[in-house]
């Protein structure tokens, strides 16, 4: 029990961020018109590509002669970048079509 309580107070900053972000996420999306659901899903998909930062850290920390760690990090960087770049480009392509016609 004390373990868990001390863990909570040690990580209270992070816990605050998590809770506030949950509310921000819900609030920000709450009033979206249904026409934008697909682009929004795609945009959110690109944003969680931020996981690539973790991949870069893993890659950068790996010992240069530890090939298993290098391979895992390298693959993670490729996949994460795919998520980020592909996600933003696809979203942009969808939204390009919503331009107001003159």
């Amino acid at each position: 029990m004390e373990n868990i309580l001390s863990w909570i107070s040690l990580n209270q900053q992070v816990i605050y961020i998590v809770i506030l972000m949950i509310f921000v996420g819900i609030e920000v999306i709450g009033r979206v018109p249904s026409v934008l659901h697909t682009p929004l899903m795609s945009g959110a998909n690109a944003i969680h590509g931020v996981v690539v930062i973790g991949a870069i850290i893993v890659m950068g920390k790996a010992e240069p002669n530890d090939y298993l760690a290098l391979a895992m990090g390298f693959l993670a960087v490729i996949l994460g970048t795919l998520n980020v770049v592909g996600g933003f480009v696809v979203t942009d392509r969808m939204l390009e079509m919503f331009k107001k016609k003159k």
Partner: protein
Amino acid sequence: MSEYILTLCYLVASVTFILGLKMLANPASARKGNLIAAAGMALAIFGTIFLYQEEGFKLGNYAWIFGGLLIGTIAGAVSAKKVKMTAMPEMVSIFNGMGGACAALISAAEFYHIYEAHKATPEIAFADIVSVGTYITIAAGAIIGTISYIGSILAWGKLNGRVKDYSFKGQHIVNLVILALVIACAIWVYQSTIADIYIPFLLIGFFAFIYGVLFVMPIGGADMPVVISLLNSFTGVAAACGGFLYNNKAMLTGGILVGAAGTLLTILMCKAMNRSLLNVLIGSFGGGNKAAASVEVSAQGHYKEISLADAAMVMSYANKVMIVPGYGLAVAQAQHICHELEEILNDKGVEVNYAIHPVAGRMPGHMNVLLAEADVSYDKLMEMETANDVFKTTDVVLILGANDVVNPAAKNDPASPIYGMPILEVELSKTVIVNKRSMKPGYAGIENDLFFQPKTSMLFGDAKKVLQDLCAEVKAI
């Protein structure tokens, strides 16, 4: 100094994610919002590469990092540029799967890192080295990431028809057992000594993989948007686990933001279809009704067909025409020719609008994207509530490959499985022309009374072909 700048980078990135998501929720600012979030992402990525420090050491292996970034960028940009508009949902699913795999790999690499650092003392208990909180984030990242990865790949396969639905009796119980096994293995790892952690950790991944497969397999192809949206929020949570692990605020905010927003979006999608999330996940929709529906088909009432020439005539002399596009239009890729028909009718002085049901097409909002691709102006697209007010004064409704979203049973038959789903009330208009390929029931597997009403006439054929012929006929008048 440099770590202060990095903190600032992450702060700016987090703000751009929130701002970007907010702007994405408004048609006028959506594109800018996407670009702002992308700029924030670039800042966070390059900030990490050049400024990140751990215990005073900078990151190494620059060649590998930039190699990976380059490959990912080229592959991502090319595939995103080349994909057809109708295949967009599949593409989003694939990219989501890549993110999930990335999160799972990070957890695996971090786990391996711990193992390598302590393998000299194999008899030490794993629990003495790693705190519960850290371990939970590693394990959760691995589990959620793996489920999201394989689930997204299967969702992609289902959307393009490569993977068929599959379910067996008692599957829900099997799923629960496998989920329990995943958690049991996770606890097993934590109870082991360093020497023995390898096998249970691999088993976590193995069972999570199986769970992901069984989770998506029984869910019908038309429900995939909901599943993709759900897996999207899963990946967000997996990314947040990574943020927790590295105490990285950009990953944490981005991940949780997507996790929360994705969950809400999933619920909104379910609501538009009048189904609970649980119902979608169990995949029982239509299961019991399909048999009943096939009996009904043989006992169906009388419907009348309309010739192309007549349909063209009716539409050319109408004041107001409303087009109701559905899945059939998306499948036939008939959005361009549909716009052409709209213009030809416009030239004849007919007012043409589009009524868009929230779940028309393959994904909520997908129909709008398709029509926007075909240059249909944004203010001609009416949302359901607006359209339902306008139907009363509409002369002709042309339904293109939509079925369940115009089924009056949702309003007046409490026994119907779609009862309560908000629909487009097309029967309020004077005439209804329905274009379908055949009299087969729609996705929900139920009969549609609308087709047998006196004011309804059927125009059979592939949406694209029919529209081409209609255009020619209308021009000739």
